[in-house]
C-alpha cells in the first residue's frame, strides 16, 4: 500500500488531509511539526510527503531542505502545502527541493488526484 506522510501543525487540517487520502485507500502517516516529520520520514520511508509551510520551530521550507540533504530521505518526493499563494513563495519551495506546490484551501478530491499524479498512478 502506498504510504504518505502528511505534515501540518493545524490538527484539523492534518486530519482533513489524512482522512481524504485514507478514504481513497492510502496509508497515511501524520506529523504535526517539522522535526518529527524528519524523524518519521527517515524511519518509515513514505512514498510521498505532503508538507505544510508555516509551522512553528522548523518551517516547511527548512524541513524540505533537510529532507533533501539527508541521503536516507532525499529520494522521497516532497509536495508543499500552503496558504501562501504567491509565485515567489512557491519558488522558494521548489528551490528547497519540493516537487510541486498545492495551495490552501484545496478540494479534497483534487488533493487526492494530484497525489496520484505525483505518484505516477
Amino acid at each position, binding site marked *: 500500500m502506498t504510504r504518505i506522510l502528511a505534515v501540518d501543525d*493545524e490538527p484539523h487540517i492534518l486530519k482533513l488531509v489524512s482522512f481524504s487520502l485514507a478514504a481513497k485507500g492510502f496509508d497515511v502517516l501524520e506529523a504535526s511539526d517539522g522535526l518529527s516529520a524528519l524523524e518519521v520520514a527517515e524511519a518509515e520511508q513514505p512514498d510521498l510527503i505532503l508538507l505544510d509551510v508555516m509551522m512553528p520551530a522548523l518551517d516547511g521550507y527548512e524541513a524540505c531542505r533537510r529532507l533533501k540533504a539527508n541521503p536516507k530521505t532525499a529520494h522521497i518526493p516532497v509536495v508543499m502545502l500552503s496558504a501562501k499563494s504567491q509565485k515567489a513563495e512557491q519558488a522558494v519551495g*521548489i528551490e528547497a527541493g519540493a*516537487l510541486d506546490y498545492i495551495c490552501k484551501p484545496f478540494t479534497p478530491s483534487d488533493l487526492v488526484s494530484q497525489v496520484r499524479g505525483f505518484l505516477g498512478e
Partner: protein
Amino acid sequence: MTGGRSRHAHDADLARLVDAADDGLICFGEDGIVLYANPAARELLGVDGDPTGVAVSELGVPALRERILHCLKPRGRCGPQPFSIQVGERTLSCRIWRARNGVRALAVSVHDESHLVSHQERIGAVLDATADGLLVLSPADEVTFANPAALKMLHAKEHDLVGARVSVDGLLGMEPSEPVLGAGHCREIMKCDLEECPAYSSADIRCWLMNGTLCEGGKPQTFAEKQERCRDCETHEILSETLDVLSHDEYRELDLQCNGNRLVVKVKVTPIIDSDGDYTGRVVAIRDITSEYEIAQMKNEFVSTVSHELRTPLTSIKGYVDLILDGDAGEINDIQHEFLSIVKENSDRLVELINDMLDISRIESGRIHLKVEPEYIPDIVDGAVDTFRAVLAQTGRAVKVRVPDDLPLVTADRDRVRQVLINLISNALKYSPEGGDVTVKAKHTGNTVTVSVSDKGLGISREDQKLLFTKFYRVDSAMTREIGGTGLGLSICKSIIELLGGEIGVKSTPGSGSTFWFSLPLAPEEMVRKPEVSGSRPAGGTVLVVDSDPEIASLIETYLRRRGYLVYKAYTADEALATARRVKPQVITLDVIMEDGDGFDLMTRLRENPDTSSIPVVVLSIVCDEGRICRFGAANYLEKPIDSSRLLEVVGNLVGSKDSPLALIVDDDRSVVSLLSETLHRRGFAVARAYDGTEALAAIEDRVPDVMLLDLRMPRMDGYEVIKRVKRHAEWGSIPIVVMTAHPIESAHTDLLAEVAGQINKPLSPDAIASKVEELLSGVSLKVASPEEVTS
C-alpha cells in the same frame, strides 16, 4: 490734422488727454515748485486741491521730496529707472523725466502698483506655507529660490543653497555628472554615519542635489559606486529602478533611508518657458511622501497577512464540507446536501474574494511581476476556454471560439492574460440566460490584436458601463445578487491589461447582450516572422525548451509547435528541473549560458536525477565546445543563431526514429480541438487540426492522417459531407473515422455512419477517445512505422 487747427487747440487736446490719464503726472520747475499736477497724481499722492505753485517740500510726500530735491541739484544724477514709494496704503512706482532744451524742470509719472505687490506677497506666503519643497533653478541650474520646506527637507540653510549649482540629472539619476562642489561641503552636511548605514540618507539627496553624486565619509561617490556598495540593500533596487527612466515632467519616487530615518520623496521637474518661448530655468518640486508610503506598505502587508490567516480556517471549512458532499463521510439526505452546497458555494466565494483582494493589493503596490513575452493569442484563448471544460460539459453550453490562426504575436504575460480571459468568459457565462452560448473572437487591426468575449445576456446600461471597471462596483439587480462574485474581477482585468500597454472596454445594448474586449500591442517585428518548416510529416511529442532569454525560448517554441510538438518553456535552471520532473519531456533543448547558473551544471543535475536522467538534452549555444558538451552528456548540440530545419531534424531524431501516428481532429469548437490535441499529444500522437469540413479536406490533401476524429455539425461543410467525400476517395477510403456528436444521428445518414470506425457521444472523455484511437491504430501502426513513408 487740418491746417485750420491752431496750436492752442492742439495743446488743449493734450491737456485733456493728460487730465484723463490713469497714471499720475506731476511737473516741477527748477526751484521745486509744482507747475502742474493731473487729477490722477493728486489722487495717488493724496494731495488736497490743486498743488500748482506749492513747493515739493510742502506737498506732504516725503519719499518723493528727497528724490526730486536730489535731481534738482546742479550735479544731481537722475536715471530713468522706476522707483517705488509708499504713500498711505499704496505702493507707487515712479519715474522721473527731465525736460529737454536745457530747462531744469522735471516731470514725474506715478503708477499704482499696490495690486502687484500684494500679489507678490501672496505668492510669497503661499510658497512659504506649502509643504512641498520647491527649488527654482536658473538655466545654468543654479538655485535662485528655495522655499522653507525645501530647506528643511534638504537640511540646508538658504545661503548655502541659493546660488549653488544643482545637478538635476544627478538628482533624477540620469548620467551622474562631475561633482561641482568640493568634498568638504559634503562632509559638512552629512547627518548620518554612512559607515553604519548601507542605504541612503537624507543628506545623500542633498549632496546629490548639489553634486549629482552621493558622498560617503566626505568623499564624493558617483552613483555607480554607491550602487555597488548598496548592492545587497533592498533600497538600492527601488532606487535604480526609479532612476532608470525619467522625463522631466513626471513624478518619480526616491526612497532614501538611513539608520531608521526614512525619507521617501517624489520629485517633479517642470521647465519654465517664458512668453517668448525661451527656456528660463526650471522648478523642482520635492514632496515628502514617507507617511503615505508607509501607510500603503502597512495596508499591503495587512492584506497579505489577513488573507493568509483566512486561508487556514477556510481550508478546514471547505475541505470538510467537500468531504461530506462527496459522500466520504457517509450518506446524507437531500436537504443536508442542499444546505451544505450553500456552505460550499459561499466558502468558494470567500476564497475567490481573498484571491482577488491579494491581486488588487499586489497590483496597486506595484509588486506584480509581469512576465512579458511574445505570445500567440489563440494558445491563450485555448488555455482559458479549456478551464471551462467541466462546467460546459455539465451545463451543455458552449464557448464558441472564432479566432483566426494567422494572428501575429502580441506582447503579453500569458498567465495574466489567461486570467483576464477566464474572468470575462466566466462573467459572460454567469450573466447569460440558460443555454446562451458565449463567443470569443480575436482580430488583428493596426498595431494591436483585439480579443472580445460576447454574450447574449441582459446587457448593461450606459451608466453602469462607465462604472463597471471600478473596484467593488456591481450592477445592482436581482440577478447579480443571486450570482455572487466579488466585484473586483473587472477592476483587476483593467489593471492587468493597462499594465501590459493595452486597453479594455465594453460595448453593450441593454436587452441584446454585451461584448467585453481588450487589445494588446503586437510583439516587435523580428519575433513575428514565420519560421520555415520543412514539408515533412508533423511530429508528436513533448519538448522542454530551456533558455534564459524569453524571446529566444518563444522563437524555439514557435518552430517546434508548428511542427506539432507540445512545448514547455523554462527560464531558470530550477524551473527547468522542476518542469522536467513534472512533465517528463521526450527532449530538452538547453542554452548552456544561463543567468542563474551554468547550463552545464543544470545538465549534471538532470543526469543525476533519476526522473530526468534518461531525457536526451540538445544543447543550443553560441559557445561551441563540442568536447565539453559531450562529456556532460548532451545528445546533440546546435549553434546559435538557430537554424530551424536543423533544430527540427535533431529533435525529430531524438523523439523517436519511428514517426508518430497523425490524428486529424475536426471540430468547430476550438476548446474540443484543443482538449483532444493535448490528450493525444501526451500519448505520443502528432496532431493536425481543422475547424470545419472544408478545412478538414484541405488538411487531408496536405497530409493523409492515420485517424480522423470528426464532429458532425459544423459550419460550411458538415461532418456527413466529409465522410462521404473521404470514403469515395480512392486513397483516403481507408482512413479510420471516429465520429463525435452531441446529437442523435439523423436517420437520413445512418447508412453513411455504417462506414465509420467508431462513434463517441459528447460530452467527451478525452482519455476514452485516446484509448479508442490507440485501439484503432493498433491495426495500422505497421503502415505508420514503415521507414519509406517516414522519409517521404
